[in-house]
């Protein structure tokens, strides 16, 4: 029940994370920037069009007004105001967009198709804009007009000549309504398109990432899928696949070399050891002293141990046996090793302690982790003087599960710490202790194999060696062991 709930939660979480991931993709960001730029451009373009239209319309109206005024002025100057009065009265009857009003010194209407003198200050020579009312159906409608006022000095009259510019106002109204909707639509469509585009891109990239993951996990036969569309992703996939072919070939070659080196060296070593054993048996049968031969056998065994250790480091470095990665409970691996070494520590008068932590599941190769740990504990016990302490611990850190072995021995000076991990490096002080000098190198190789590192630090006093394994989430299903069984 509980596990089910957790699984469901994890599913929802992943889904949410999925959406979040989509927004975080490069493609989506590019689309977003593009949409924003486009929206700004469209706004600017529409704004310019509007401004230009308005300007043109005003200019047209001004031209008409100017022509009217010129004509009417000529009439007035040539034939006097009566003729003007007559013309205006006549023109007022025609209707249309032209508006006139002739008024006396107190702005009272004398004639024209406007009924009320607009409440604008007379500013001869300049254009004024004002609202006026016009009958439509049963009522009145307010419309916008633009015109000029002329003062006929001699007779103390005012003449207003104007043009209806309501069309311009309607245009502006339409524009202010349309613009936000247009921009909203562009942003919405762009956003949706961006999501689709980045989803598509993500799908292609996910395929590449999945394949890389499987290859890192040890399956070198995997290849990135090619869709056949010959687009840039296909080119990338093909290049990656070519690279993988090459890596696979190199790895295979390396394995073949390791195998033949192993075979070609083990066969003569085997004969050598056999012969020594035969000589030993023969000498023993004759009752002679065989200590020389026994020493030779011991040396041969040391040679074999070193050779085996080197070979194993090479193989571990090459990632052989990746198929044997399983879900490991680090506490149980550690306590098994602790149990193996505890009597040895006790015999040497060293207090040995194992501290286990909770939730210490990792993905790993049990045998290799155990061997690495055994090497660390072996070293710790070897270099810690009687009365000292060796502590093995499984703890949690921000980066993962930490497996550490700390001792109270002489430690390793900071400047030598990175060096001792290299193959065959043994510090002067330890040159006479037994061992191949490859113990820490193997631990380092095992660390690399698990995607982590061997870190040596000061235990003040002594040495602390630790490996931090990536944590395995409990909701992740255990990878079926079928694959390794089918191999």
């Amino acid at each position: 029940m509980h596990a089910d709930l957790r699984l469901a939660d994890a599913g929802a979480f992943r889904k949410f994370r999925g959406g979040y991931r989509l927004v975080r993709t490069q493609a989506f960001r590019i689309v977003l920037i593009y949409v924003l730029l486009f929206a700004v451009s469209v706004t600017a373009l529409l704004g310019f069009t509007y401004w230009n239209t308005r300007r043109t319309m005003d200019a047209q109206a001004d031209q008409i007004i100017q022509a009217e005024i010129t004509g009417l002025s000529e009439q007035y100057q040539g034939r006097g105001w009566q003729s003007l009065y007559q013309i205006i009265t006549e023109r007022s009857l025609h209707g249309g967009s032209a508006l006139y009003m002739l008024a006396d010194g107190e702005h009272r209407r004398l004639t024209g198709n406007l009924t009320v003198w607009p409440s604008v200050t007379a500013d001869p020579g300049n254009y004024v804009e004002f609202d006026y009312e016009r009958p439509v159906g049963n009522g009145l409608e307010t419309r916008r007009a633009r015109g000029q006022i002329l003062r006929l000095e001699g007779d103390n009259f005012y003449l207003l000549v104007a043009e209806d510019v309501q069309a311009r106002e309607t245009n502006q109204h339409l524009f202010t309504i349309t613009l936000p909707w247009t921009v909203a639509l562009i942003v919405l469509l762009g956003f949706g398109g961006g999501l689709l585009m980045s989803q598509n891109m993500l799908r292609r990239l996910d395929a590449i990432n999945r394949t890389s993951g499987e290859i890192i996990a040890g399956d070198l036969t995997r290849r990135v899928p090619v869709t056949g569309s010959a687009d840039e992703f296909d080119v990338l996939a093909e290049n990656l696949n070519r690279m993988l072919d090459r890596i696979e070939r190199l790895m295979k070659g390396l394995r073949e070399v390791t195998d033949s080196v192993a075979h070609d060296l083990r066969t003569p070593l085997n004969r050598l050891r056999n012969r020594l054993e035969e000589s030993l048996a023969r000498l023993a049968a004759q009752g002679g002293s065989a200590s020389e031969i026994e020493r030779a056998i011991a040396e041969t065994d040391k040679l074999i141990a070193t050779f085996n250790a080197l070979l194993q480091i090479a193989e571990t470095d090459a990632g052989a046996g990746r198929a044997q990665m399983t879900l490991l409970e680090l506490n149980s691996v550690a306590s098994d090793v602790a149990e193996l070494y505890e009597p040895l520590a006790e015999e040497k008068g060293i207090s040995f302690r194992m501290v286990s932590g909770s939730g210490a599941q990792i993905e790993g190769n049990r045998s290799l982790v155990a061997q690495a740990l055994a090497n660390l504990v072996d070293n710790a016990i070897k270099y810690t003087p009687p009365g000292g302490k060796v502590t093995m611990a499984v703890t949690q850190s921000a980066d993962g599960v930490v497996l550490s072995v700390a001792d109270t021995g002489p430690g390793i000076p900071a400047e030598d710490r990175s060096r001792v991990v290299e193959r065959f490096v043994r510090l002067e002080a330890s040159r006479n202790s037994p061992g191949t000098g490859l113990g820490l190198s193997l631990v380092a190789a095992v660390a690399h194999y698990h995607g982590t590192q061997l870190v040596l630090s000061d235990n003040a006093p002594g040495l602390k060696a630790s490996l931090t394994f990536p944590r395995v989430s409990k909701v992740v299903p255990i990878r079926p062991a079928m694959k390794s069984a089918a191999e």
Partner: protein
Amino acid sequence: MRILVVEDDIEAQRYLVQGLKESGHVVDEAADGDLGLSLALSRPYDIAIVDRMLPKLDGLHVVAEMREHGNTIPVLFLSALSEVDDRVKGLKAGGDDYLTKPYAFVELLARIDALMRRRTPAGIKTQLQVGDLELDLLTRAATRSGQEIELQPREFRLLEYLMRHAGQVVTRTMLLESVWEYHFDPQTNVIDVHISRLRAKIDKGFELPLLHTVRGAGYMIRAAAA
């Protein structure tokens, strides 16, 4: 005991055959996989020692074919290959044990003895006895001369393995592989310390020691002095 040795390295073959004959076994030899397989299928052997890499027919295939033909004799693989995956492959192909070259002859002999013992089980035992030392596998209790001995779980498994192979040499590597399930060589001989602890528990205070060290080979538990 009749032993089949399939080994292509003539020098190694000669040594193996001679050593096994000196140990009192009857030995047939084959230098390639084809001959090895036809011998294994046509004559009754108690055990086969097969090299992993053989001309004509690979060692893995020889054993797989044997198993396919219903031949169930114990098979010990010898291999000069590097180790990580090969042990698993060998055991999957039907091998019962796996020894990497170069090996000590005592190690080979001890493993052959252990494989033969496994082949002749005297029913399902619930009680093991060596002299006056008794081990009850059901109640997980150990007694010597009726005196109860307290054992840690691993000490129990160690004693059980030794007693199942009573009278036989058991090497350190065999103990590490069977009791601890580790297939690597610890740099220090930790097994010796475990044995001396166990010895203190089962032999201390008794006149006749049961757990013996076999020099240059390993350990043996037996009732009477040989």
